[in-house]
């Protein structure tokens, strides 16, 4: 008898809370929105999310504030998003690692993309390879020829072993048949810039945006991009697609997502808020100046896109493991 009472009370509370959420949605947001960046403050993803949320904040009556929660690659911070209330007041920034590496390596127990509702994709950055301006190779063909002649002699810096850029390099190896000496620089893009400029690494796997100032200054040259069309900011850098290589379109992105179970109209409102911010001149100008490629995918497309990326990458990683190229 008692337990039945308890159950009925729970049901009433659930009903009431549903009701309160429903009443929320009409005038969402009524309180400040918490945005979790799973990386340290000062990084590239941090900047993108801070800038867009600062612009988005102007169109709503409340504030959007950023909290940097680091750890477990990007897993620890995003785990908070997964376990927040399903009311749309907690959102998080997801990148390649959050979609592929963290779930694949099961780095954070209980981490699952099923627990989030993706709102939109705001930037996309194709993978790229850069060399010093004074490097002996003027273009990809010369670079590839040199690599073919001296397998495993030319060194390429990546982020970490088994991380995004390393996997991209392995994919390049697979398609082109080339082999490189791999140098891991897990400490972020600063470390990679240093390695390239000091001559420790011959080439670096990165995105052109990360090296934009050095490219514009004529210190570094973009060799090739892993895209299917030319980067509007670096039109002289070719891509694999146009050189006739298949399957070498890869990159990272920033996706905003909230907790799963958030009512659809709240998600739609969030999408609208970020859509407006994304399409503002302020954001576009900022992106242009800092070498970020602003791209938009709305709620309808973003989940399919992310899941497709995840599926492709999982498949590729499994193949690399089966071939004995990397360890599980």
């Amino acid at each position, binding site marked *: 008898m008692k337990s039945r009472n308890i159950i009925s009370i729970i049901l009433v509370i659930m009903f009431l809370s549903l009701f309160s959420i429903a009443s929320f949605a009409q005038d969402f947001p009524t309180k400040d929105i918490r945005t979790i960046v799973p990386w340290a403050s000062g990084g590239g993803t941090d900047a993108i999310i801070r800038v867009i949320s600062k612009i988005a904040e102007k169109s709503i009556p409340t504030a959007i504030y*950023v909290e940097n929660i680091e750890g477990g690659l990007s897993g620890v911070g995003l785990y908070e998003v997964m376990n927040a209330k399903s009311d749309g007041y907690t959102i998080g920034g997801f990148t390649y690692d959050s979609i592929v590496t963290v779930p694949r390596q099961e780095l954070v127990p209980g981490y699952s993309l099923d627990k989030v509702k993706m709102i939109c994709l705001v930037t996309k950055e194709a993978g790229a390879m850069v060399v010093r301006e004074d490097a002996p190779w003027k273009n990809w063909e010369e670079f590839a020829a040199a690599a073919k002649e001296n397998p495993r002699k030319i060194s390429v810096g990546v982020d970490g072993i088994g991380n995004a850029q390393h996997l991209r390099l392995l994919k390049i190896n697979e398609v082109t048949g080339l082999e490189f000496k791999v140098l891991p620089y897990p400490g972020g893009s600063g470390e990679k810039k240093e390695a390239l400029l000091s001559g420790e690494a011959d080439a670096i796997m990165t995105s052109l945006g990360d090296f934009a100032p050095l490219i514009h200054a004529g210190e570094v040259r973009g060799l090739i991009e892993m895209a299917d069309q030319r980067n509007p900011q670096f039109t002289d850098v070719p891509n694999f697609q146009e050189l006739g290589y298949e399957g070498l379109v890869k990159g990272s992105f920033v996706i905003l997502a909230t907790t799963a179970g958030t009512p659809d109209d709240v998600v739609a409102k969030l999408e609208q808020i970020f859509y407006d911010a994304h399409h503002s001149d302020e954001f576009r100008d900022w992106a242009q100046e800092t070498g970020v490629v602003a791209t938009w995918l709305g709620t309808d497309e973003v989940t399919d896109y992310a899941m497709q990326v995840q599926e492709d990458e999982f498949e590729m990683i499994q193949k690399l493991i089966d071939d004995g190229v990397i360890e599980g």
Partner: protein
Amino acid sequence: MGNLDGIIQGFITFFNPSVGIYAIIGFIIGAFFGAVPGLTSVLAIALLLPMTYSMDIVSSLVMCMGIYMAGIYSGSITATTINIPGAPSAMMTAIEGNQLMKRGLGAKALGHAAFASMIGGTIGTLLLIMVSPYSVKLALMVKTPGKFSLILFALIVIILIQRKSIAKGAIATFLGIMFATIGIDTMKPLARFTFGFDILVQGIDMMSVIIGTFAISELLIQSGEIEKKLEISKDVLSKIRRKDFIPTLEEIKSIGLWRYFKSSLIGFFTGVLPGAGGSMAAFISYAEAMRSSKNPEEYGTGSLEGIAAAETANNAMCGGAIVPMLTFGIPGDATTAVLLGVLVINGLQPGPQLMTKQFHLIAPMFAALLVSALVILPITFYLLAPYFIKIVSINRGILYASIATVAIVGSFVSTFSVFQMAITLIFGVIAYFLRKQNYPTVTLLLGFILGPMLEDYFRRGLSLGHGSPLIFFTSPDSLFFLVLTVIFYYFLMIKKPMIMKEDLVQKKAK
């Protein structure tokens, strides 16, 4: 960057009151964050990030410079007065300064720390303005194997200067390195040393370790010694006058101008080397001062020379760390990493072009750094110094309750994690027992900070050498630091074995 016009223009912009005022505001914020255990200048700038977005970029950079300079300097205040370094870069100052404080010479110690910070900060900034293109080139000559040996040098030397308790110093260092390995491997996405606890995947945050080993352990030690009287009587405190804080010409002479300059150079170049940072700058300079000192037996018992060396270097580091950040977008330490974020969020991309095309935005920043060190620092010190020293006369319950709360809430604010708050406490307890057993905690922290770098450089060095460790002996940059290690070993262990045996060196422990 020998752009004299630009620099002058920068100073003119800076002396516009609406810009210059931000340097003072920044300095005050930085001084507060630097002095309070558990708060650092890195956190201050990170917390101000959202605000800088709505501010004018020149003003926000000027403010950040004030924070940076003040945050590094003011760590020495709490280090000296209550033996809790407000910032990790003041670790070495705590060792010497607090000994002086206990002997009633706290004013002297604070004065020398401020004076040295002023000199170091000024020389560091001047070097930043004058030689940065060359210093970057020099820094780029130190590659992965060289950095490995540099870190190894630092760790070996910090163990060696523990004199009587070298083995214990080594154990504490190893413990620090081991704790830092908990979490995700540096090179691969692989969880390690979680001992079956899933939550340990997130690793141990450096803030938790700093706050735990310094603030919480001191709190525990103090709570165990409540019956003990204040080391300094209130009479002594009330007799202290402003002039007691000003270093005398004689003392400065005995420390030697060359020492100040050398410490500035060490600090500046440690800053230019990406990754090393303020605690390393202070430490290397301290070790070098000890190596070349005429009175090495004073070290550990309250050496003004030691304070001067450490404080000069950590403030000179500020100018240095900015060099690679501005010229190539490579941050020199944690603060400049956040500073990079300030630039990027405001639509500036640090790089060679920033230094040429947008120099008018950067020059006021240099002016702010220089004025912070040369003018604001001594003035605020002169005005506030008597209050610094009176910290100890605050009711101890209130003092330590405030410190404990700020420290623990600080660990929450920097990580937003209750788990990291718990880690803070655990480190407090570990450090408490280590200190009770005369294990040095400074080496624990250095091990924790430098351990992951050492491993990183080691593993990448092996990749560079196709798996062979010979690369650490064949690379000239690496060889240089290995030879330096041997030289320090010779001076600290063989040439001066007398000091080591002397019992008069009662370690600061307790």
